[in-house]
């Protein structure tokens, strides 16, 4: 329900009466004023001193409704590389989009022209960047224009919404987003508002758009006048909030400024909604200019409401927020947001916890559900990464699949909140799958991060497929974004909670135990929780539905008094289950799995360490007599005759006493005039015919007579003497190409063949060139081109002569 409608202000703008989504001007007609814009205006917030820019096809800066608030410093023409963002005019008025979006935000009020913008006193600019080839450079430039001056960037564009595209920002645009949120607004962070997508009719899903799906953008969807899903609306789990927009033909559209100094009442699509939210955020920034980019997202989560928006999937998440895949946290409320903004205290710093990467391939069988679970302690062991309260959750995954559009992916949080990360897309026939694609959900906002997370993948073939080709989940991992403290209270939630998971008194310091006891006594006066407990909770009940709200556990408790505890069915990697205490205890440093705390109780090791099965330890390098087996990261024993080996048991590099190295094997050492027979392997006396002559010193083995070997006092020209592993004597090897006499290979040439000259021990072509300037030679030298056969023609001699 809308709060009491404030009296509409007597604006003289002719289309003002038609702005049904802002006020009930005519009491006899329908209106939808739940966004409470008038109430925010009546508190005095109209966007003063806030700067917004529209990233689009330009802005008609001399439009009578935009002229007053137009800000040249918030404008640029990236397509034309100048400072004038005026759109290119053509017969079809193709480039009207930016001008229409700009009017919604900051059309001047009471100027007897068109409409009233939501932030009608804000400064408005435009960045012309869609009227030409869009590249990563164009996007990065546009997202990074005057980040200390521009507060809000509103974008209503993206990759094709054709239901088959998976695309997002390139390397430079990603860096521009990151730079904006870190450095923009003098460190408070740029605010990027994004239209969630227009591909509803094509069955598109906005998680396939890397811009709306980014944690740095505020993704905005739309609802119709009567709270229905517009035909063009894309659903996904990264949508944060919603505004009214257009809908079916019998429902009203949005009025705004149009190209050639006109007004329009025909603006449609999700691009209606993003600028509206940009305007509402401008009101919030006027109320509190110190809001950070994350504060703004928290404010939207906290103040947006489902009101009468119709969706079958409204649910309450583990933190009590109502959320849907169509509308995020609901319709924005300008009055609520400015009231909250005014008294807002900056949320604690953002922590990022990168979960472990599961690289065990899993096949996705058609018409079956693949479930993959991971138990996370949300980086509780790292103070600067620990995420106790969630903001965004990202699932990064790689999937190979014969038809990407048949896939549906969901994520279930420890509190049981299910986010659909991907729905079926009938037009997506691609066999490219997903390669490290990041799906983002805001549906777990405010929940605890620690516990068991489950990824579910459904493959429902829409057409006949080759049954021999199955999809495969190649790898996946979770990224948690959030805070280590409760975002809205000075006291951390664990301290303010009613009761806490049982902790043996013997494990606490006396003063701490007394403090916690006092907390328990105070808190017990609070209202009792009577709802269902988490399945892992024991017989003593719980304070809430989560695994960290149990009073005792069925299996094990994980965590500490300091970081908070939770009940788990089994202990995660790095911990072992102490049956007696029913606790997960930490393994020795470096152990991934163990049976006790000691350094010799490891059964599996952390990445980069090798498990020594005989010692049950984790080591960086395998000791002598063992080799590193890479597949399972184990130290395995070398062959009994080897002292050292590499890669395999019988690939010896050193031998035990009484054996000598022959190739990669250790063979028994034989006395002079004896040889090693193959079967049985033992030393036999050489045949009497062998003697001390030059021809006679071939290896004394019947099976390798090696007639081509000769013993020579020195190598002939064109060869050099080199050590040869496994042979007692040196071997003559051929000099490098173009070298006729040498002391060794690469750079040790003494004399070159005809047509080549000796330079620095190498032979280079006698070719010279005339255009080898300093820059060119620096490039030749720094890339060592003269050492590469293919590049000898690159003036090497000239450059080397020049020093």
């Amino acid at each position: 329900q809308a709060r009491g409608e404030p009296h509409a202000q007597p604006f003289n703008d002719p289309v003002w009466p038609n702005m049904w989504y802002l006020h009930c001007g005519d009491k006899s007609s329908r209106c939808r004023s739940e966004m409470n814009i008038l109430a925010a205006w009546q508190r005095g917030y109209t966007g003063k001193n806030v700067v917004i820019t529209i990233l689009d096809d330009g802005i008609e800066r001399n439009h009578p409704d935009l002229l007053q608030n137009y800000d040249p410093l918030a404008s640029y023409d990236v397509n034309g590389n100048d400072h004038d963002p005026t759109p290119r005019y053509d017969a079809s008025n193709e480039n009207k989009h930016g001008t229409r979006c700009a009017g919604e935000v900051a059309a001047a009020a009471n100027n007897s022209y068109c409409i009233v913008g939501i932030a009608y006193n804000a400064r408005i600019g435009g960045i012309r960047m869609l009227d030409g080839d869009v590249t990563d450079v164009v996007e990065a430039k546009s997202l990074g224009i005057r980040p200390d001056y521009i507060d809000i960037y509103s974008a209503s564009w993206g990759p094709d919404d054709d239901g088959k595209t998976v695309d997002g920002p390139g390397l430079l645009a990603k860096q521009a987003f990151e730079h904006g949120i870190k450095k923009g607004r003098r460190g408070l962070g740029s605010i990027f508002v994004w239209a969630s997508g227009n591909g509803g009719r094509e069955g598109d899903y906005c998680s396939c758009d890397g811009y709306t799906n980014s944690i740095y953008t505020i993704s905005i969807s739309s609802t119709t006048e009567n709270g229905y899903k517009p035909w063009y609306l894309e659903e996904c789990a990264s949508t944060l909030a919603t505004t009214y927009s257009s809908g079916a033909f019998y429902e009203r559209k949005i009025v705004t400024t149009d190209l050639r100094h006109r007004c329009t009442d025909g603006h449609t699509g999700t691009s209606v909604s993003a600028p509206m939210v940009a305007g509402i955020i401008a009101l919030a920034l006027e109320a509190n200019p110190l809001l950070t980019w994350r504060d703004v997202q928290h404010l939207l989560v906290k103040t947006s409401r489902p009101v009468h928006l119709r969706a079958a999937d409204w649910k309450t998440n583990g933190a009590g927020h109502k959320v849907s895949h169509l509308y995020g946290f609901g319709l924005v409320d300008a009055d609520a947001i400015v009231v909250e903004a005014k008294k807002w205290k900056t949320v604690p710093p953002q922590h990022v916890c990168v979960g472990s990467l599961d690289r065990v391939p899993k096949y996705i069988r058609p018409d079956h559900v693949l479930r993959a679970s991971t138990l996370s302690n949300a980086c509780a062991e790292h103070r600067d990464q620990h995420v106790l309260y969630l903001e965004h959750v990202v699932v990064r995954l790689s999937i190979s699949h014969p038809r990407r559009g048949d896939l549906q992916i969901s994520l279930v949080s420890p509190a049981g909140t299910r986010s659909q990360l991907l729905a079926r897309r009938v037009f997506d026939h691609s066999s490219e799958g997903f390669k490290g694609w990041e799906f983002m959900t805001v549906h777990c906002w405010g929940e605890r991060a620690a516990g068991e997370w489950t990824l579910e993948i459904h493959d429902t073939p829409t057409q006949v497929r080759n049954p021999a080709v199955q999809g495969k989940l190649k790898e996946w991992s979770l990224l948690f974004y959030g805070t280590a403290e409760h975002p809205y209270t000075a006291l951390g939630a664990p301290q303010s909670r009613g009761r806490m998971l049982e902790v043996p008194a013997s494990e606490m310091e006396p003063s701490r135990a007394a403090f916690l006891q006092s907390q328990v006594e105070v808190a017990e006066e609070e209202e009792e929780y009577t709802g269902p407990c988490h399945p892992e909770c024991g017989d003593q009940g719980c304070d809430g539905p989560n695994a960290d709200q149990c009073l005792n556990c069925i299996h094990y408790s994980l965590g500490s008094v300091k970081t908070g505890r939770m009940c788990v069915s089994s202990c995660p990697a790095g911990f072992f289950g102490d049956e007696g205490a029913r606790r997960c205890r930490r393994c020795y440093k470096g152990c991934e799995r163990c049976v006790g705390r000691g350094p010799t109780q490891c059964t599996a090791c952390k990445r980069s360490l090798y498990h020594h099965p005989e010692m049950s330890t984790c080591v960086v390098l395998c000791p002598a007599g063992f080799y590193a087996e890479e597949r399972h990261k184990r130290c395995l024993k070398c062959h009994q005759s080897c002292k050292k080996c590499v890669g395999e048991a019988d690939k010896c590099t050193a031998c035990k006493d009484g054996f000598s190295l022959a190739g990669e094997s250790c063979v028994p050492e034989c006395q002079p005039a004896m040889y090693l027979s193959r079967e049985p392997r033992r030393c036999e006396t050489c045949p009497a015919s062998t003697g001390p002559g030059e021809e006679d010193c071939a290896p004394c083995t019947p099976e390798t007579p090696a007639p081509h070997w000769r013993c020579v006092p020195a190598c002939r020209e064109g060869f050099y003497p080199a050590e040869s592993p496994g042979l007692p004597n040196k071997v003559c090897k051929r000099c490098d190409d173009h070298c006729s006499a040498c002391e060794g290979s690469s750079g040790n040439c003494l004399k070159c063949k005809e047509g080549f000259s000796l330079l620095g021990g190498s032979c280079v072509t006698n070719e010279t060139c005339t255009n080898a300037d300093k820059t060119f030679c620096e490039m030749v030298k720094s890339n060592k081109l003269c050492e590469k056969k293919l590049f000898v023609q690159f003036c090497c001699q000239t450059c080397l002569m020049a020093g």
Partner: protein
Amino acid sequence: EPSRTVYTNHWAVRVRGGPAEAARLAAAYGYISLGQIGSLENYYHFHHSRTFKRSTLSSRGPHNFLRMDPKVDWLQQQEVKRRVKR
């Protein structure tokens, strides 16, 4: 059918030494420097007028020499991204 990549005659180049060095390099290898890319320090926008404006093949030739210049850390020929207004 996946759409083919279309390459432009614009480059993003990461150069050490500031805008003057970027301009010098651009001139030395036949490009025009269109300045820093937004707020990204050390990243510059180069344009090469003697390369095809759009091509399904990536360009080589002098661009390889620019890539090999000791002052250039990274270089990327720009590809056309299909973007739609919503």
